[in-house]
């Protein structure tokens, strides 16, 4: 089993990106199969939604609220022309939060929090032979361990991102009304100005792509861990770095794709 998806060993560094892509694809072919027992899959899915999603609500809400507040304050202090209405603050917060901050920056934060958790959890199972134990029992370990995490993130990340949008806009409003920079009426007018529902669709589509990247890349690096505690740490770091890079790259591609 280990041999089947391990082309990367003894390969020159310059080719590793190709062999690792091959390993990744082979692993995903094992991940995306029908779960062996539906009841166990649902049980694991609920656990993953709790562990990867519900437990991230606090950090997502906190960061979003403060980022929304900072964007609002920055905008308010930089409007020095009398021709620019104060409602521009609400407009700017809404656009930056919905279009980029919530889907991209929060996904990067989740790549760190959730990605390292996935990679270290699966990596530890690998080095303590728990994955071998699953294989010996006849369980498709890749499917059993990674598939529920992928589905959980695809389901819960859009919820987290919508929450993040709300918290960002709320944070902006609290900062404006708290510091008395913009009235609630102006802020809300800005939020409503030229709103297009498509931006939400665009944002959530990006979120789904990013959730897929985080879960599969982290699962891949965890599953491929070989060695001991040091390698688990390295796998966790690689998972976060590679997920983050891919999120940034795909953000550019998807933005171009969806907004043209």
């Amino acid at each position, binding site marked *: *089993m*280990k*041999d*089947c998806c391990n082309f990367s*060993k*003894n390969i020159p560094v310059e080719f590793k990106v190709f062999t690792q892509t091959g390993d990744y694809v082979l692993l995903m072919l094992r991940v995306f199969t029908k779960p*062996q*027992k539906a009841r*166990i899959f649902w049980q694991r899915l609920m656990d993953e939604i709790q562990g990867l999603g519900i437990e991230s609500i606090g950090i997502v809400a906190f960061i979003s609220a403060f980022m929304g507040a900072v964007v609002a304050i920055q905008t308010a202090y930089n409007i020095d022309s009398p021709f620019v209405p104060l409602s521009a603050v609400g407009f700017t917060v809404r656009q930056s939060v919905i279009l980029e901050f919530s889907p991209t920056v929060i996904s990067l934060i989740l790549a760190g929090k959730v990605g390292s958790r996935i990679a270290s959890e699966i990596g*530890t*199972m690998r080095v*303590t*032979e*728990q994955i*071998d*134990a699953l*294989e*010996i*029992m*006849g*369980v*498709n370990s890749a499917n059993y361990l990674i598939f529920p995490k992928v589905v959980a993130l695809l389901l819960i990340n859009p919820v987290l991102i919508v929450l993040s949008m709300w918290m960002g806009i709320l944070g902006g409003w609290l900062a404006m009304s708290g510091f008395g920079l913009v009235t609630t009426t102006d802020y809300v007018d800005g939020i409503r100005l030229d709103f297009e529902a498509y931006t939400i669709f665009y944002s959530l589509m990006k979120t789904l792509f990013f959730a897929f990247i985080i879960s599969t890349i982290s699962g891949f690096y965890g599953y491929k861990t070989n060695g001991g505690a040091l390698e688990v740490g390295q796998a966790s770091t690689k998972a976060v770095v590679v997920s983050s890079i891919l999120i940034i790259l795909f953000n550019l591609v998807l933005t171009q794709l969806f907004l043209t």
Partner: protein
Amino acid sequence: MIEAKEVDKSFGEHHVLKNISCSFEKGKTNLIIGQSGSGKTVLMKCLVGLYEVDHGRIIYDDRNFSEMDFEQRKNLRQEIGMLFQGGALFDYMTVEENVMFPLNMFTHQTKEEKLDRVNFVLKRVNLENVNRLMPSELSGGMRKRVAIARAISMNPKYLFCDEPNSGLDPQTSGVIDQLINEITKEYGITTIVNTHDMNSVLSIGDNVAFIYNGELWWNGNKNTILHTENKELNEFVFGTELTSRLKR
């Protein structure tokens, strides 16, 4: 019976197993012994299919494991139980959930039936009232016993034990050895134990295969091993201060 026929395995340039042919009999405790790095763990992993052999065949009671596809192997693996060096218990499950895991995955028993089976196998390995404990709350010996309980929960035909005594004191090691031996005889299992513990060899070694530098160097049993003229095996068997004094 499990047979390895002309098995070769390399990792890059490193030729780990060289043309190994041996058989492991039903109802007996078959031991694979050898120094660290001799290839005994690789041989065991080849036998259970965790590593693919480069050349040769693995036969389970006339079924050629090497030629099986994923589904066929999956079915065969439900007849296999394995005890790993560190126990390999699932950290996030209780003892009960660990032992019940194969039953949940592969049987359609009711919860009561599964619970009865779990309690039966836990009692068989002399563990009671530990159902709700997490693996982290268990001692090394208890972890090994839970792992044995999990390995036998599906009534396996074949039991593999990778260094079952590592990290255990001599007394607990003896208990684990006897438990493996009793279970093997009681249920007529083909058991293969990977070890470098001479106490295990002398107490439960019905059939002993000595691996040296990736080759099958010697084959015998616990009675013949002490009288062998094989130089490398003698160095291995009488390599410790205790055994060399006993020999003198």
